[in-house]
């Protein structure tokens, strides 16, 4: 199996979240989910908030990721996102509270006046939704 493995890194501004040798990944790309196996064509694409998962020793592990982008090389994948959280580390109550707070924040933003903030907060809301979904 080991010859089929490739390196995957998930990096956020607060540090490297994941750095492992895996067999397969599935990432939430802007044009739909995509899977990567070893030997994939080099590619650069966006990541939208969603579930990123990787296969290691025939088991899937899941992460909630925020928006960012992804660089795929033949033998390595780097995922650069604003935020990421491992499924097992997510506390359901915390995630719910976070989602609620963010939804309130979102409701207060005037979409016409501040489109940048709207985008930023709605991205966070989506990430929080993913987190709640993963934890429950």
């Amino acid at each position, binding site marked *: 199996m080991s010859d089929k493995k490739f390196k995957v890194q998930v*990096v*956020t*501004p*607060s*540090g*490297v979240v994941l750095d492992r040798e895996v067999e397969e990944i599935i990432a939430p*790309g*802007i*044009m739909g989910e995509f899977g990567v196996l070893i030997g994939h*064509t*080099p*590619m*650069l*694409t*966006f990541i939208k908030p969603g579930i990123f998962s990787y296969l290691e020793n025939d088991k899937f592990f899941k992460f909630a990721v925020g928006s*960012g*982008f992804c*660089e795929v*090389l033949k033998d390595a994948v*780097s995922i*650069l996102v*604003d935020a990421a959280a491992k499924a097992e580390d997510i506390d359901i109550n915390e995630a719910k509270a976070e989602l609620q707070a963010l939804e309130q924040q979102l409701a207060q933003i005037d979409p016409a006046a501040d489109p*940048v*903030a709207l985008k*930023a907060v709605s991205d966070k809301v989506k990430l929080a939704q993913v987190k709640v979904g993963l934890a429950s």
Partner: protein
Amino acid sequence: MANLLDIRKRIASVKNTQKITNAMKMVSAARLRRAEEAIKSARPFADKMREVLSSLAARVNPSVHPLLQVREPKKILLVQITADRGLCGAFNTSLNRRAEVFFKEMIGKGLQVGMINVGRKGNDYFRRRNVEIIDKYVNVMGSVSYELAGQVVSSATEKFISGEYDEVYLLYNSFRTAVTQVLTLRKLLPVSAEGEELKRRREYLYEPSEDELLTAILPRYVQVQIYTGLLDSVASEHGARMTAMEAATTNAEEMIHKLTLKLNRLRQESITTELMEIVGGAEALKG
């Protein structure tokens, strides 16, 4: 003797000061460790970002994105990152002085200047001077976050894209080691891929298109630059404060030593005089 009492009071007061400076040193040392970790964990992200951006920027026409647009400079914006608090040696003063030199230079070229202040000390300094402060973020250095960097970026890019300012610079103390900080001034906007080595250029499949990717990556790139700048500044601040407080503690120690010597000498002198007086008196009585 009043003089003896004075010196005792001085010693007590210096000892108290020493306790404070020593405590501040310890606090800074602890915070420095955390800040150092934060900057180290942020660097991979920043490096990767730069790598991807430079390979992208090389393939794309600069006119596709407003953040890449080079204009004839008329108004210059400086984003300065200082500390919120003092007692950290020349940390803030050297930043403020450098900023002032920069402004003079630019005004000398006939350009107009404005600034965004992050950190209270820089803002306090320039508030009373003849510089237009278009935005300020004070008392934020205790909890630096990626979001904070985002706020700073959006107020800077807004001014740049609207054409109000034609160039944006960033001034901060960059962290090297606990005792060395390097004053860093660099151009933030327009973003240029020049200077970034393109040896790692690769052929990619771009999805969606190069232009769209660039549009999304550029603002993030600027945000990461400010974010690492903030983290650098925080780590430098703690380093500078630690060094300054260490020096202050040593100085206090030296002062206590000197004062104690002086005190002992004075005490001895007064005892000698008293003895002489007693002996003299006894001799006179023997008569």
